[in-house]
């Protein structure tokens, strides 16, 4: 089933670059040590996924990431029987795999998944720490090394895509925001390789676009977008063009706002 969800378990060998925003590393480690599942909240592109990678490396556990979508069912997570040459064969889903190998399982954008996934998430996340597999008639007892991490973006306004209290109250919640200017500059610098001066300008540009949040834009430029723009600049693209292509058009289709962001880019450089 790993094909269906695109998830693979992997050990992270090299240290993923991560700059702490606050004490989230200590909190995560403490939660992990106490077998508490973790909920990451925050806007897109602020470093949630990178943080999980970093923690998996630090804790030396394999990581299984599942990108949730609206057709993702409980069976996709737990596993199902397949037929091979007339024989039936059970294949573990990513969640069952993670439980068996004591990995960290990361469900990205969990609100997108179908509601029936809560059936398997709930018993994993309270003091029962079990994963029942109905089809096998088996109940996996979760080893202490296993950890469940989910993420979601509270900015989404759809009332149909809200995390239920019964789910969210099982988690230790860490809130992520865009890093403050100096830190963000360091991140853009080391991720894209641009000079400090250029990184500072990109960050300033990003801050300007974030002023437009709620006034036309749903979100301002994320750190990820700024890093992308930095990479283009580093590859020789003119800064204004990089901001246009990597940021402006990624943020909106509205011609007036495009013009605004375009002019902001040329104002900053």
């Amino acid at each position, binding site marked *: 089933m790993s094909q269906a969800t695109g998830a693979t378990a992997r050990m992270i060998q090299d240290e993923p670059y991560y700059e702490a925003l606050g004490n989230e590393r200590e909190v995560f480690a403490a939660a992990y040590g106490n077998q508490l599942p973790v909920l990451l909240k925050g806007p897109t592109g602020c470093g949630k996924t990178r943080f999980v990678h970093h923690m998996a490396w630090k804790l030396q556990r394999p990581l299984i990431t599942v990108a949730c979508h609206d057709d993702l069912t409980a069976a996709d997570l737990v596993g199902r029987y397949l037929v091979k040459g007339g*024989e039936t064969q059970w294949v573990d889903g990513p969640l069952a795999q993670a439980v068996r190998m004591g990995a960290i399982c990361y469900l990205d954008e969990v609100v997108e998944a179908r509601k029936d996934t809560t059936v398997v998430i709930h018993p994993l996340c309270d003091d029962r720490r079990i994963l029942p597999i109905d089809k096998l008639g088996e109940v996996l007892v979760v080893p202490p090394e296993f950890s469940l991490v989910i993420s979601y973006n509270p900015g989404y306004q759809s009332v149909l895509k809200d995390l239920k209290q019964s789910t969210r109250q099982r988690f230790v919640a860490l809130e992520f925001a865009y890093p*403050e200017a100096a830190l963000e500059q360091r991140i853009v610098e080391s991720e894209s390789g641009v000079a400090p001066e250029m990184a500072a300008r990109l960050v300033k540009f990003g*801050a300007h676009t974030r002023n437009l949040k709620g*006034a036309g834009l749903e979100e301002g430029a994320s750190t990820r977008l700024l890093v992308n723009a930095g990479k283009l600049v580093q590859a020789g693209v003119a800064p204004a063009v990089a901001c246009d292509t990597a940021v402006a058009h990624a943020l909106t289709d509205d011609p007036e706002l495009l013009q605004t962001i375009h002019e902001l880019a040329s104002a900053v450089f």
Partner: protein
Amino acid sequence: MADAPRQNFFNLIRVQKDLEKIAGAALIRVPRMQEVIGEIAELEREAQDFILHWAEVIALSNTELTAHFLGQVPAAFRALDQAAVEDWIIKAMDVFDNRGLGFAIEVFDKLDPWIEAHERNRTACKLEQIAGFLRHFVRALGGRTLNITNDQQAWTDTEKIFLPTALNVLADRAANGRLMKSTAVYLWAQNRYGTWRYRALEEAIRQLDAAVTWPVYQCLEGVRLMAAIARELPGLAREMEAVAYVDEAHAASWAAFTAAAAALAAPEASARDSLALVADFSQVPLPAARRWQGEMFPQKVREALFKRVPREKEALQQALSALQPEHEQQPTEDGSEAAEGTQAANRFSIAQNGQAGATQPEYELRYDGQAVPMSAELQDLLDSIMQDMGEMAEDYLTPAGGSGAYPLDESGAGGEGHLKDLPSPAGKLWLYPEWDYARARFRDAFCALTEQDVPEGDPGFAEKTRVKYRGLAKSIQRIFEAILSEAQRQRRQVHGDELDLDALVEAHVDRLQGREMSDRLYTHFRKAGRNVAVMFMVDMSGSTKGWINEAERESLILLCEALQVLGDSYAIYGFSGRTNKRCEIYRVKTFNEPYSTGVERRICGIGPKAYTRMGVAVRHLGKLLGDVPARTRLLITLSDGKPEDYGSYRGRYGIEDTRHALLEIKRSGIHPFCITIDREAQSYLPHMYGASNFTVVDEVAKLPWKVADIYRKLTT
């Protein structure tokens, strides 16, 4: 090749015949008739048809006028494009309607001035064309949100940026657009970099006199602000320099002046440094104003400042009182918590993040030295106050006392009173409680509410709306259709039009293992699956009069049409009222009623009434919505401002009651959402609706589109 002259000849004959048919009588009066016909015959076929069409139209009004038109139209086509020619004709027809034949003939005959004006128009940049962009741009630059509006001169009062309706100083429209933008940015910089900071302003007004020393100050500030812009926004500064000067001597005079006042280019220089230099520079020749410099009106700024400062102070104090830990702000029964209040004053403090003089200084609010998480709105408020004051006075940081800020008069002095002295109303009467935050208790059966039908309005409005938003209506329809197709595919059905492969494999496995097979093996496309009920709660308070009311009605008409596609069950009610004794709910459409011309007429009849007593309306409509069987229930409020009613129902009292009412209906499984046009809504809506349950539409004209878009987002 011999065909060409022959073709021309035929053209000539055809044009002459057509003209004779349409404007025969007029044609004879055209001077140089044959020549004119020849010139028309040489035009493109499209232009000829255009001329024939207009000749016919004008001939309906006046033959003489048609003759003058035909005499001039070839010349007009030589100088102008077709759209401009059409403008010229329309102008003449308007003049004919309003002032008579003589003046209209003058418009046609005096073609040259018209062409000149058109030329000017072509290169001019009109504010209305770029106001939307400028609004976004200035907002993105940061600081207090400044609205862009038009005036004779360019200036700012720290709330708005005033710009001329059109600029036509430079050679082409793009350059004039850059000049307009530069002007807006320069005025933004005055706000952002402290020209209008309270103390600097007071000192400047005291020390300078308008005629002699104020221009010196203006130039010195020009140097300082330009240095700040160049530091933070170098690209923009280059663009501004490029359009600033009339000639090289002008540029040189500024370069010399800037060099002389170089001290002001330092990042830490403030308006007061400029002020200190005024005496030194009073003998120095001043450079002429740069093109985007605009004017300065210190007294008007002062007025705006004096209005804003107390308002924001109060808002901050209220926000702090909400932030204060619960146990420390319990008001004692008699409301005497002054002692606690002063104690708390020393506990909030402000610290600045990042380096000084940065474009976007961020302020951090601390409580007992610990950083307090702030909402974006509070951050904006702090920024705005710091922008005015440059520092935070201690009294700003005193949380508002519970009941002190808005004394509640129960005596009825504010028009409120107990319900026993109620005039008996016609129709059914509901009684609702109201939340009094100061007492932390309900006032039982405090609000009397009646329902009534909205009188039917002018059905022409609906027709007009449909015509006006033809394109939009179609795209809304398409968006909604897309929602349906998204939710259509249902898996694991007993019947259906395609096999569900996953289910099939599973069933096969079950069979091999000797277990019971499922019969749900199909996928099915179906229109069901949506189970949404929506209540639109429309603000009918007096303040919606005019544009807002019109936009509300337009939005509803467009939305109703589109909602037919979705098949969601929905209702529309308006609310208003005056005092707790007369809360009124206006029925526009109930849940059970299908969309009909009657509903449409009632939408058209939605009009401004009295005040906005919101809490009771939320409770009543929440109850109606609660009775509808649906999985998802939405209460969408269209509003233009905060809850407010005659008497004590204003400020925090109204907000808290509304918030409480919203919490009550949330508990019963309804999702409230608010769409508002109030620019200041950021300060109270998050508190009432929660961080992501509202949206502010900054332009009334965008409301219809926004409402549909938001509806789509909310329900998918």
